[in-house]
C-alpha cells in the first residue's frame, strides 16, 4: 500500500527465516502508554530496526457521521466537540462554516473577529499540548509535558469562563456565537498572552530546542519526502515541515484572515525535528494574530439575528467548507435534501489522513523512533475513528 518504494537497506524479508533468524513481531497494542489513545501498531522488527508496520485503528469509532444524519443541524454541533477533543472550537467553526456556506447565512464582523481569536487560541492549546506529549514520548519523566499542561490549564480556564466547559465548548452557532465575549475577558487574554505565555514559550525553547539529546533523537528521523506528502494528501504542520507552502488561511483567505499579517514557517529537512519546530513557530504566529485581532475588534452583534438556528432547513444542495485546524485541513461535506436532517454529513479528518504515511516514515527506523514519529504526526483518536 505504501506509495513510495521501500527505503534502500531496510531488509523486507520473510518473518520466519531459519538462516537470518526470525523477525520479531511486536504489537504496540491499543493499550500502550505512548499511542495517544486507543491505536495499535503491529510492528515487525529485525533486531531493533522496523521492517514492517501495520497501523490498526477503529477502537474509538462512535458512528459520528450516521448519528449526524439523524439529528437536526443544531443538535450535531455538540457532537463536533468530540471529534478532535483537544481543539473543539475549531471543529465547531469548521462545521458551522460549512452550514453557513450551505444555507447562505451571513456572519457579522464582530463574530468573525471573535471566531479568529478563539480559533487561534485553540491552535495554541493544541500545539503546546503536542510539544509536551512529543517530549514525554522522548522520555523525560513528564517535566516539559507538565509545563505545557500548566499553561493549557490556564487557557482552558479562560475558555471555561467564556463557553461554560473546558473542552466541550459547543460555543459556535450558525451566523455567529452563542453569547457575546466581554471586553474584560479579552483584556485578561491579552495580558495572559503577553506575560505568562510568552515566558512559557521562552522557557520551552531554552529547555528543549538546543538540547543535544533532542537534536540527536529527532533530527534525520522519520523523513517524509515532499512528493510523498503531496500524493498522500497530508495537510497542516506536517506538510509545511516538508517545505510545501500550503496554509489554508493564506490559500482560501476564508473568514477575515486576509486582514492579519502573519507568516507561515516552512521546514527544509522534513524530519521529526522540523515538525516539532513548526508547532513551536506557529505558536508565536498565533499569538501575533490574537493580539492584532484583540486590538481592532469592532462593536456590533455577536450573531446574525436573522440566522435561524433551531429548526434550520437549508434548501437542497451540497457544500464543502474547510478551515486550517491545528492538525491540518479539517473540512465538512454536507448534502442537504431540504429536510431538517442532513442527507449526508462527511468529516475530512486531518489526523487520519496524516496517519496513512506512518509506515513510510517508520521503515528503517528503530522501535524507539516509531514512538516519536507517531507523536510528531499529532493524531487524536477521536478524529481518526470518528
Amino acid at each position, binding site marked *: 500500500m505504501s506509495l513510495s518504494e521501500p*527505503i*534502500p*537497506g531496510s531488509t523486507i524479508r520473510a518473518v520466519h527465516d531459519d538462516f537470518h*533468524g526470525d523477525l520479531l513481531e511486536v504489537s504496540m497494542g491499543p493499550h500502550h502508554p505512548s499511542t495517544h489513545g486507543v491505536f495499535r501498531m503491529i510492528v515487525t522488527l529485525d533486531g531493533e530496526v522496523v521492517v514492517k508496520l501495520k497501523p490498526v485503528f477503529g477502537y474509538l469509532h462512535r458512528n459520528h457521521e450516521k448519528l449526524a444524519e439523524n439529528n437536526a443541524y443544531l443538535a450535531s454541533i455538540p457532537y463536533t466537540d468530540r471529534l478532535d477533543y483537544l481543539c473543539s472550537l475549531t471543529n465547531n467553526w469548521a462545521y458551522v462554516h460549512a452550514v453557513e456556506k450551505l444555507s447562505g447565512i451571513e456572519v457579522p464582523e464582530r463574530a468573525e473577529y471573535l471566531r479568529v481569536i478563539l480559533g487561534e487560541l485553540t491552535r495554541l492549546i493544541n500545539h503546546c499540548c503536542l510539544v509536551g506529549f512529543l517530549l514525554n514520548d522522548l522520555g523525560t519523566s513528564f517535566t516539559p509535558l507538565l509545563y505545557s499542561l500548566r499553561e493549557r490549564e490556564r487557557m482552558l480556564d479562560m475558555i471555561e469562563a467564556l463557553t461554560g466547559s473546558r473542552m466541550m465548548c459547543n460555543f459556535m452557532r450558525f451566523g455567529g456565537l452563542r453569547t457575546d465575549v466581554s471586553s474584560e475577558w479579552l483584556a485578561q487574554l491579552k495580558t495572559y498572552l503577553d506575560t505568562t505565555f510568552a515566558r512559557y514559550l521562552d522557557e520551552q525553547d531554552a529547555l528543549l530546542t538546543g538540547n543535544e539529546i533532542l537534536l540527536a533523537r529527532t533530527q534525520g528521523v522519520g523523513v517524509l519526502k515532499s512528493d510523498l506528502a503531496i500524493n498522500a494528501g497530508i495537510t497542516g504542520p506536517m506538510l509545511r515541515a516538508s517545505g510545501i507552502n500550503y496554509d489554508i488561511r493564506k490559500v482560501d483567505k476564508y473568514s477575515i484572515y486576509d486582514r492579519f499579517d502573519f507568516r507561515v514557517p516552512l521546514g527544509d529537512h522534513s524530519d521529526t525535528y522540523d515538525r516539532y519546530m513548526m508547532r513551536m513557530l506557529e505558536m508565536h504566529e498565533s499569538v501575533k494574530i490574537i493580539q492584532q485581532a484583540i486590538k481592532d475588534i469592532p462593536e456590533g452583534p455577536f450573531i446574525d439575528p436573522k440566522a435561524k438556528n433551531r429548526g434550520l432547513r437549508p434548501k437542497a444542495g451540497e457544500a464543502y467548507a474547510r478551515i486550517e485546524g491545528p492538525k491540518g485541513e479539517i473540512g465538512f461535506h454536507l448534502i442537504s435534501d431540504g429536510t431538517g436532517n442532513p442527507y449526508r454529513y462527511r468529516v475530512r479528518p486531518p489526523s487520519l489522513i496524516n496517519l496513512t504515511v506512518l509506515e513510510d516514515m517508520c521503515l*528503517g527506523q528503530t522501535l524507539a523512533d516509531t514512538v516519536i514519529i507517531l507523536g510528531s504526526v499529532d493524531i487524536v483518536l477521536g478524529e481518526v475513528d470518528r
Partner: protein
Amino acid sequence: MTTFPIITLLIIAVITLGITAVALFLKNIIHCSILLAVSWVGIAAFYLWAGAEFVAFAQVLVYVGAVSMVVLFAVLLTQRKQLDLEKLTGTVGFRELGKLAAAMVATVLVIAIATTPLTGSFDAINEPVITVRDIGIQLRDNHIGALLIVGVLLTVALLGAVVVASAEPKTEE
C-alpha cells in the same frame, strides 16, 4: 586474609564441583549457563581461600562479568528449536571420537597434577601476604615485556571491535 583450616577448602571444593556437575546435567540450557557462572564464583572462592584477593576479584570481574554474558548471548542467539540431540551429533563415529578426546584431556590433567610439587602441609598456609603493590612491582620489573605485549594485544582487539562495530553496513544510506 586470615588463614582458614582445611575444612573450608573442602567445603568450597564440594560446592563448586557440585554446581558444575548440576550444570552439566540440566536440560534447560539457560539454567546450565547461569550455573556455570556460579561455578566460576566457586573458583574465585578458591583463590580467596588461598589469600590471593587480586586474582579472585579479577576472576569474578572477568568471568562472571563478561564471559558469562558472552556464553549467554551465544546460547540465546543459537537457540535451536527443540531438535533431538541424536540427529545433531551425526553418526556413531563422532561418539567414539568424543570419548578419545576426553581420554586425552584427562591424561594431560592427571600428569600435570602428579608432577607439581605440593608445598608442605595444607593447613599452615603462612606464606607472606602478597599485596597488590608487590604484584605491581613484580609486573613492572620481571614481567614488563609480557605486560606490554598483552596490553597492546588487548588494545588492538578493543579498537578492532570498535572499528568493526562502527563501520555500519554500506547498504544503509
